C-alpha cells in the first residue's frame, strides 16, 4: 500500500479570503472601474406616473438629439419581455405603464455628463389610470384590475383578480382543531418593504458583436439568468449571449433578477450605437428603480389546548409583488413553507397569495419570503403564550418539531433536530432568565425599559421541492497549464465567500493546499451552469458537486499513472502537467443527483420541501427609551445548527451581517412611498445601521453534519435574516408590555402607542384583548 498523507483539515479552518488581497488593496475591479475603448454611457428615461398609457413622446429642441442613440421598445429584435417565471414584464414600456419609474426609453452618449439633462428633457404625455398601492387596494373587489396574466397561464389555472400566484398548503382539517380548542387566538402581522442597499449599485457594460451576438459584463448573482433573458430580447441562441460576472459589491438578492433588465438595456443601446455601453445607476435611481423585499400581511388563527399544545390553525399569507410577477411566485412559496415554523401542527392550512400593485416589482432579498411569514409566526407564538399564561419558552417547548416528526408539508425529519437543546443553550448564552427578572424590577422606575425576546426558526437550504432536480446543476474542474485544478461554475462571489469555501472543498477533496485551487471567473462562454447563486444553496449543493468533481479529478489523474497515489502537492502538479502534455486537456464534471429519496408534489404542496434545514434560536435584548421613544438593540445572541461549519470566520461574518440587516428591517429601515414611488431613495433618509447603531452580535454554532452538503455543510446565507425582527419585537413586548405587530417599528410608532390614552395596557395582563391587531383574540372556553 502506498503511504497515504493525512488530509490537512482545511474544511473548518480559516484560510484567507480567495480574492481578499485585491479587495484590501483597492485593486478589485468592479464594473464601474472598467472602461473600454470607444465606450459610451447609457441612461434610462422612466415614467413619472404609476399607471396609465403613453400618449406621446417628444424631444424638445434644446438638446442636440443627433448626438444621442435613443432606444425604444420598437428597437427590440426579439420579444419585449424580461423573462423570469412568466413573460408579463416588458423590457421597455411600449404603451402601458404599470409602476412609477418604469423604463420607457434608453439614451446613450459618449459623455455621461450630458445624460441627466437629456433624460429630464424628454417629454412624455400620459393618460393616467387609477392605481393600487397596497395589498388591500389590490384585493378590493371594486378596485381596478391592474395586472393581466399571460393568456397561456390562464388556460391552466383559475386566476383571481390581481393575483400573481396562490398556494394552498393543507395538512389535516383545522376545523376539527377549532372545534376541540380551549382557545382560538387570532393575530394580524405586517412587514414593510426593505431595500437591499448593496453598497455597489447595479451596473452592466453591454457589447454587440455582430455575428458573435451580445456580450455583457457586470455586477450580478446569476449569469445564466441573464443569458436566458438576453436570448429572448435579442432572439439569439444561448451560445450567442455571453455573460460575465465582474467583482460584485454586495447583492443580497438584489442582483438576482434585476441584472436581466439592465443587461438587456445596455446591450440594446450597444447594438444600436455600435459601441460598448455602460449603464451604472446612481443610488437614487437604484433605489427607486430596482427590486426590494416584498411587503407582507399575515393573519393567524390558531387553536390551542389549555395545556399549551397547538391543535391546528389557519395562516393567510399575502405579499405585495409590485407591478410584475418577476420572482413573486417563488418568494411566496418559501414564505408559505416557512409560515409553519419549527412546530408540530396536527392540522394546518396555509393560504398564500402574491398580489399585484403599481409599485416597482418586488424581488429577491435574503430570506426570500421566510422573514415575512416567520415574523408573523414568532410574534404570534408570544401572543399565544401570553393568552395561555405560559412563558414564551414553555409554550414553544411544548410544540417543537423533533427528529422523526413530520413538517407541515409532510416531510419526515430524518436528520437530527434538537430545538429543545438549541433553546436551552441560546437562553443560557444570553443570560435570559436572570436578565428578564432583573429588568422586571428596574423597569418599574427606570425610564429606559429593558427586555429580552427570542425567535425559534428554521431555514430550508437549496431550491424548494423539485427545484434542485430541475436546475440539474453542473460543475466542472479542469487543469491550468501550470498543473493547478481550476473550478468552473456559474456560481458567483459577491462577498459571501463562494470562492473561498469552494476552494476549501476542492483542496480538501484533492488533498492539496488551499492556494493550489483556482476559481475561474464566471463567464458563460467558459463555465457550466451550476445554478443561480441564491437560496443558501451554493456551499451545500454546489459544494457537494465540487467535492464529487474533485474526487473524480483525483481518480482520473491517479488512474492515469501520471500522479502517484498518496501524492504530494508537487507530485500532483508535475503529474498534472505531464497529463496535459499527453492529453492536451483534462476536464471532469459532476452533475446534481439527489442525496437519498426526495419526493415533492408541486400541486398539493406536499413532500420534502427542502433537502436540509438550518435550525436556530436568536435572542435579542432591547432598551426602549420612554422619553425619546427609540428602541435600541443592546445585545444579540444568534445560535444556529448549520451542519459542518466550513469556514468559521466567514460563517460568523455571514450571520453577523444578516443579523445587522435583520435589525435594520425591524427598527430602522422604512421605504416611504407616495403614489407608488419611493420618496426616501437616498442613504441620508433611508436609514441602515451604522457601526454606532449595532449591539454586540454573539454568534454560536452547533454542528450536526448533514449528508446533503459538502463535508456536512448546510446553507447559512439567508438564515440570519429570519430571526432578528420577531426576536426584537418580542423583546419590546417584554420591556414595555406593548405588543407591536408591524415592522419597521420606528420611534413615531412607539410614541403613538405610548401616548395613546387609556389603552396602553399589556397583552400579558389582559390576554383576551389584543390592542394592536385588527382582529380580537377570541376565547371560546
Amino acid at each position, binding site marked *: 500500500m502506498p503511504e497515504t498523507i493525512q488530509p490537512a483539515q482545511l474544511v473548518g479552518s*480559516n484560510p*484567507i*479570503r480567495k*480574492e*481578499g*488581497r*485585491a*479587495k*484590501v*488593496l*483597492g*485593486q*478589485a*475591479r*468592479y464594473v*464601474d*472601474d472598467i472602461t473600454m475603448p470607444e465606450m459610451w454611457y447609457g441612461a434610462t428615461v422612466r415614467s413619472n406616473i404609476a399607471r396609465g398609457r403613453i400618449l406621446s413622446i417628444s424631444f424638445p429642441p434644446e438638446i442636440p438629439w443627433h448626438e444621442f442613440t435613443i432606444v425604444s421598445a420598437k428597437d427590440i429584435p426579439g420579444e419585449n419581455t424580461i423573462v423570469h417565471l412568466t413573460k408579463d414584464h416588458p423590457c421597455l414600456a411600449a404603451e402601458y405603464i404599470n409602476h412609477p419609474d418604469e423604463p420607457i426609453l434608453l439614451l446613450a452618449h459618449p459623455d455621461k455628463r450630458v445624460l441627466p439633462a437629456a433624460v429630464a428633457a424628454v417629454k412624455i404625455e400620459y393618460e393616467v389610470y387609477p392605481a393600487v398601492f397596497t395589498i388591500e387596494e389590490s384585493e378590493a373587489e371594486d378596485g381596478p384590475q391592474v395586472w393581466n396574466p399571460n393568456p397561456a397561464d390562464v388556460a391552466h389555472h383559475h386566476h383571481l383578480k390581481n393575483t400573481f400566484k396562490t398556494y394552498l398548503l393543507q395538512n389535516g382539517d383545522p376545523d376539527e382543531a377549532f372545534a376541540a380548542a380551549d382557545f382560538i387566538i387570532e393575530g394580524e402581522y405586517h412587514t414593510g418593504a426593505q431595500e*437591499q*442597499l*448593496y*453598497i*455597489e*449599485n447595479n451596473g452592466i457594460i453591454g457589447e454587440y458583436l455582430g455575428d458573435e451576438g451580445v456580450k455583457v459584463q457586470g455586477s450580478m448573482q446569476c449569469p445564466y439568468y441573464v443569458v436566458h433573458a438576453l436570448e429572448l430580447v435579442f432572439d439569439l441562441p444561448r451560445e450567442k449571449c455571453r455573460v460575465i460576472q465582474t*467583482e*460584485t*459589491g*454586495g*447583492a*443580497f438578492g438584489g442582483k438576482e433578477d434585476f441584472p436581466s433588465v439592465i443587461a438587456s438595456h445596455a446591450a440594446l443601446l450597444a447594438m444600436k450605437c455600435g459601441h460598448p455601453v455602460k449603464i451604472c445607476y*446612481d*443610488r437614487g435611481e437604484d433605489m427607486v428603480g430596482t427590486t426590494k423585499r416584498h411587503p407582507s400581511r399575515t393573519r393567524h388563527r390558531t387553536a390551542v389546548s389549555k395545556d399549551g399544545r397547538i391543535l391546528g390553525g389557519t395562516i393567510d399569507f399575502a405579499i405585495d409583488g409590485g407591478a410584475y410577477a418577476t420572482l413573486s411566485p417563488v418568494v411566496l412559496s418559501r414564505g408559505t413553507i416557512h409560515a409553519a415554523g419549527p412546530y408540530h401542527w396536527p392540522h394546518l392550512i396555509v393560504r398564500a397569495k402574491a398580489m399585484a400593485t403599481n409599485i416597482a416589482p418586488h424581488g429577491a432579498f435574503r430570506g426570500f419570503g421566510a422573514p415575512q411569514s416567520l415574523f408573523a409566526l414568532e410574534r404570534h407564538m408570544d401572543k399565544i403564550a401570553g393568552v395561555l399564561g405560559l412563558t414564551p419558552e414553555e409554550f414553544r417547548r411544548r410544540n417543537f418539531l423533533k427528529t422523526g416528526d413530520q413538517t407541515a408539508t409532510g416531510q419526515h425529519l430524518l436528520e437530527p433536530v434538537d430545538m429543545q437543546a438549541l433553546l436551552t443553550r441560546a437562553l443560557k448564552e444570553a443570560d435570559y432568565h436572570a436578565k428578564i427578572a432583573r429588568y422586571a424590577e428596574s423597569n418599574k422606575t427606570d425610564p429606559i425599559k429593558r427586555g429580552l425576546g427570542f425567535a425559534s426558526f428554521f431555514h430550508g437550504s437549496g431550491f424548494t421541492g423539485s427545484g434542485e432536480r430541475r436546475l440539474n446543476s453542473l460543475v466542472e474542474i479542469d487543469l491550468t497549464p501550470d498543473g493547478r485544478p481550476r473550478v468552473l461554475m456559474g456560481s458567483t462571489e*459577491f*462577498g*459571501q*465567500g463562494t470562492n473561498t469555501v469552494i476552494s476549501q472543498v476542492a483542496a480538501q477533496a484533492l488533498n492539496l493546499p488551499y492556494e493550489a485551487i483556482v476559481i475561474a471567473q464566471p463567464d458563460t462562454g467558459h463555465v457550466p451552469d451550476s445554478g443561480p447563486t441564491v437560496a443558501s444553496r451554493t456551499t451545500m449543493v454546489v459544494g457537494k458537486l465540487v467535492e464529487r468533481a474533485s474526487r473524480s479529478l483525483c481518480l482520473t489523474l491517479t488512474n492515469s499513472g501520471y500522479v502517484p497515489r498518496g501524492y504530494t502537492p508537487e507530485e500532483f502538479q508535475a503529474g498534472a502537467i505531464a497529463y496535459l502534455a499527453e492529453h492536451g486537456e483534462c476536464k471532469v464534471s459532476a452533475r446534481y443527483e439527489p442525496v437519498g429519496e426526495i419526493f415533492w408534489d408541486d400541486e398539493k404542496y406536499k413532500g420534502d420541501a427542502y433537502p436540509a434545514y438550518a435550525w436556530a434560536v436568536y435572542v435579542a435584548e432591547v432598551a426602549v427609551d420612554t422619553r425619546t421613544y427609540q428602541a435600541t438593540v443592546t445585545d444579540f445572541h444568534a445560535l444556529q445548527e448549520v451542519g459542518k461549519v466550513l469556514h468559521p*470566520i*466567514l460563517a*460568523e*461574518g455571514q450571520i*453577523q*451581517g*444578516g*443579523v*445587522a*440587516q435583520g435589525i435594520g428591517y425591524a427598527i430602522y429601515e422604512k421605504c416611504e412611498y407616495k403614489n407608488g414611488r419611493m420618496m426616501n431613495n*437616498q*442613504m*441620508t433618509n433611508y436609514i*441602515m*445601521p*451604522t*457601526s*454606532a447603531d*449595532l449591539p*454586540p*452580535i454573539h454568534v454560536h454554532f452547533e454542528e450536526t453534519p448533514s449528508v446533503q452538503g459538502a463535508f456536512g455543510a448546510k446553507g447559512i446565507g439567508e438564515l440570519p435574516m429570519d430571526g432578528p425582527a420577531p426576536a426584537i419585537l418580542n423583546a419590546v413586548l417584554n420591556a414595555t408590555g406593548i405588543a407591536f405587530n408591524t415592522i419597521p417599528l420606528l420611534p413615531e410608532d412607539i410614541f403613538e402607542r405610548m401616548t395613546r390614552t387609556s389603552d396602553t395596557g399589556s397583552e400579558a395582563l389582559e390576554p383576551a384583548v389584543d390592542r394592536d391587531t385588527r382582529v380580537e383574540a377570541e376565547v371560546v372556553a
Partner: protein
Amino acid sequence: MIELNINGKPYTVDVPPMKRLLDVLREDLHLTGVKEGCGEGECGSCSVLFDGVLANSCLIPVLQAEGVEIGTIEGVAIGEQLAPIQQCFLEEGGAQCGICTPGMILATKHLLDKYPQPTLPQIQEGLAGNLCRCTGYSRIFAAVEAAAKLA
C-alpha cells in the same frame, strides 16, 4: 490646470474646477480604489485622507484639493507588502464584498492615527461614517483591534 499631491506624488490635471475629487481620482487618474456608493457624503465609500483627515471625495470640488496631501487606498500598501491594517482586514474577515473596504481601511488608518489603542466605542464612532452592508461591522472591529495590537 490643477496640481494635486496624491499618495506623495505630484499630478497635474486639466479638468473643470468644480469636478468632484472622486471623479478626478477615478476617471482622470485611474485610481479606482476610491468608490462611489451614494454620491452625497453618507456612505464613506469614497473616503480619502485630506491632509490626514478622513473626507468624502464625492463632496469635494477638485479645486479645493490643491495644495492638500491626499491619501487613497493605493497609497496604503508599501509596494507589494500589505500594510498591517490591510493584513488584519484579510485575516479577521473584515472585508466581504470589498466595495466599502478601501474607505473602511482609510477610516481605520485615520482612527488609529488619532487613537493608537482605541476603545470599542471609539472604533464604533470612528467608523460610523463608513457604511458596510455585509459584515454587521463586528469583524471589522476585530480587524481594527488586531491592527491596533500590531502598532
